[in-house]
């Protein structure tokens, strides 16, 4: 009997693995991951690299020189003093000889600046200029009041604050940043994979049903074995894709300083990875069951999206909570949600990544999750058994009940 489970399992895995859609989606995702890991280089490669000339019409006394001095180290911006009319400056910008021009003047004793450019979408340049002007202003004002340079420095010196966690296992600041990045990446992967492969299962079931092959299948193998073979076959497929994409990401990140620093790849905590895989698989199983059961009561493939809606919303809700939880992992809301089976795979994993969670809490959450999966499996497979024999014009949630009745005596 177990033999048949393996036949379905391998058939599902191999057929999907050979399919064009798997090939294409893997290539595209791997490419995107590679792209993101190389983002800094790509941006560098695309930037024009040349200096941006900015004209300055100075109606104050001495601001231009100070601003010039401030921006000397900036290689992107080159300032040019403009003594002619503003009309001419406008023309220079419009003919693209200048990138932009600014007008500096004093209004009621305070400096006022206007920035003119063809468009003001590039916030980098304005930001730089604004910062430089701020420094100039402080220096000017300080001079007026009569502060010395040292006094100014003393005024603006940042406070050195070091955060020290007293709890024994609490994570250090640096560890937290690393953990946040890793958790974020894994949460996102979980979200993507659960949605992608969950709906793949639902499509698969609905297609088998609508192509009416289901009745042949379940006359030779019990629907429960068939369902499990399919869910695990696709789970293996998702892991295959995950490993491929992860390897591509890891390999390309080795050469990227930005992401390596961000993720602290040098010392990836192994336990976190293991928890990640455990919660990923459990979350996948939970949602795969839900999707499969819904797929079984759909009569036509076109109805899949409509029926999938509520379950998809659950996944999205879990993800949104997780995003909130990344910044407030200790909040009681997040703690409570980490025990709700539909959210636990993401939220409990997040807490494990960000905090020191007592083992019993983790165990309790996993037990609840496994219990729910087992419960869904028993009830879901009954509905599945009935659902695959049912053909209606339009599917609705009422069909769940009808499918349930069909398997009764």
């Amino acid at each position, binding site marked *: 009997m177990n033999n048949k489970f393996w036949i379905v399992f391998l058939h599902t895995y191999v057929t999907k693995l050979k399919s064009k859609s798997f090939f294409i989606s893997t290539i595209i995702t791997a490419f995107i991951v590679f792209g993101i890991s190389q983002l800094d280089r790509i941006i560098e490669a695309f930037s024009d690299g040349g200096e941006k000339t900015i004209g300055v019409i100075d109606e104050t006394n001495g601001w231009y020189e100070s601003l010039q001095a401030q921006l000397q180290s900036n290689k992107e911006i080159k300032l040019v003093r403009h003594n002619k009319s503003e009309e001419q400056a406008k023309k220079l910008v419009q003919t693209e000889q200048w990138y932009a021009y600014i007008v500096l003047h004093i209004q009621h004793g305070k400096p006022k600046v206007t920035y003119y450019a063809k468009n003001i979408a590039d916030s980098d340049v304005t930001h730089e200029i604004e910062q430089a002007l701020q420094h100039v202003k402080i220096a000017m004002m300080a001079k007026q009041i009569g502060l010395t340079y040292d006094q100014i420095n003393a005024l603006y010196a940042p406070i050195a604050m070091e955060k020290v966690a007293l709890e024994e296992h609490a994570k250090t600041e640096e560890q937290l940043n690393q953990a946040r990045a890793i958790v974020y990446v894994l949460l996102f992967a979980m979200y993507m994979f659960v949605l992608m492969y969950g709906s793949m299962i639902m499509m698969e079931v609905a297609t088998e049903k609508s192509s009416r092959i289901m009745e042949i299948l379940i006359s030779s193998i019990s629907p429960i074995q068939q369902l499990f073979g399919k869910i695990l076959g696709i789970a293996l497929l998702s892991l295959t894709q995950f490993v491929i994409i992860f390897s591509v990401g890891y390999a390309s990140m080795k050469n990227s300083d930005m992401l390596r620093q961000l993720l602290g790849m040098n010392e990836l905590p192994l336990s976190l990875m293991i928890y990640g895989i455990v919660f990923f698989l459990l979350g996948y199983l939970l949602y795969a069951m839900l999707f499969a059961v819904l797929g079984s009561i759909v009569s036509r493939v076109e109805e899949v999206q409509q029926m999938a809606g509520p379950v998809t919303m659950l996944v999205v809700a879990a993800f949104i909570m997780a995003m909130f939880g990344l910044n407030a992992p200790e909040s009681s809301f997040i703690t409570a949600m980490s025990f709700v089976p539909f959210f636990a795979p993401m939220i409990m994993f997040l807490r494990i990544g960000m905090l020191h969670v007592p083992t019993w809490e983790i165990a309790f959450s996993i037990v609840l999750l496994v219990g729910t999966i087992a419960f869904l499996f028993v009830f879901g497979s009954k509905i599945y058994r009935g659902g695959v*024999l049912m053909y209606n014009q339009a599917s609705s949630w009422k069909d769940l009940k009808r499918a349930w009745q069909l398997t009764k005596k």
Partner: protein
Amino acid sequence: MGLVLQHVTKQFGSFTAVDDVTLSISEQGMFGFLGANGAGKTTTFRMILGLLEPTKGEITWKGERITYKHSHLIGYLPEERGLYPKLKVKEQLIYLGRLRGLHKEEIVKEMRYWLERFKIPQYENQKVEQLSKGNQQKIQFIAAVLHHPQLLILDEPFSGLDPVNVEMLKEAVIDLQRKGTTIVFSSHRMEHVEQLCEHICIMHKGKPIVHGSIKELKRSFGKKNVIIHGELPFETLTDIPGVLKVEKMVEGVRLQVADESVSQRILAHIYAKGFIRTFSLEEPSLNDIFIEKVGATYEQ
């Protein structure tokens, strides 16, 4: 004993789909289920296969209840035709055959034999969606018989096929029966059932109205048909006692009579009244029995 159904009833909520069916189908026999849509044929088949649990009663094959342990002994062609549209014929049959407990080599051997027999060997490596409906049906039939089942259940095997393919499939079915397969099938075409089966069961609204051997049924039915072709005043025939029904045909009439002896009275009545080209006394058709028992015209 082959397939035995004892007081089998299936209810869906308050609706009774199959109502107290008791039948026994002998091994190596060919048994036909007749009935309009919704008569309960498919539900009965699904219960035989174990896809549905009977509300009451029991179904056994050679004394044992049918479970998935027996699936390599049973072949099934469902009413709702379907295959994986994107899979090639060969891949498809290998998958379905392996689920019935066969090895790949045996499947390929069997598949080639059947494809050859159905004159479609060129489709071995084509995707199912590229095949015509009739050819898809042949593939599905192959999937049902690949593993040499002892019990073969065919739900409307001939529907949607052209006459040439119907003949081809009929021959295959007869062949399988000769080789010892027990075959249960349903059809909405009376002539198919009449040609193939020794035993039948007519279902109506979940109830088995009649069942037994066709010969027996026809004999006990009593009524016969008289066919007359010729130029005669047919209008007066209704007055003869024992004539139950007169049906006008192109060349003459078809009469239903209460028993054989009435035919002789008819013959005497029409004698020398005109030119008689044909006069024959015939057994009732299954259709006559069906109409009589179900009380309605059968939906063709």
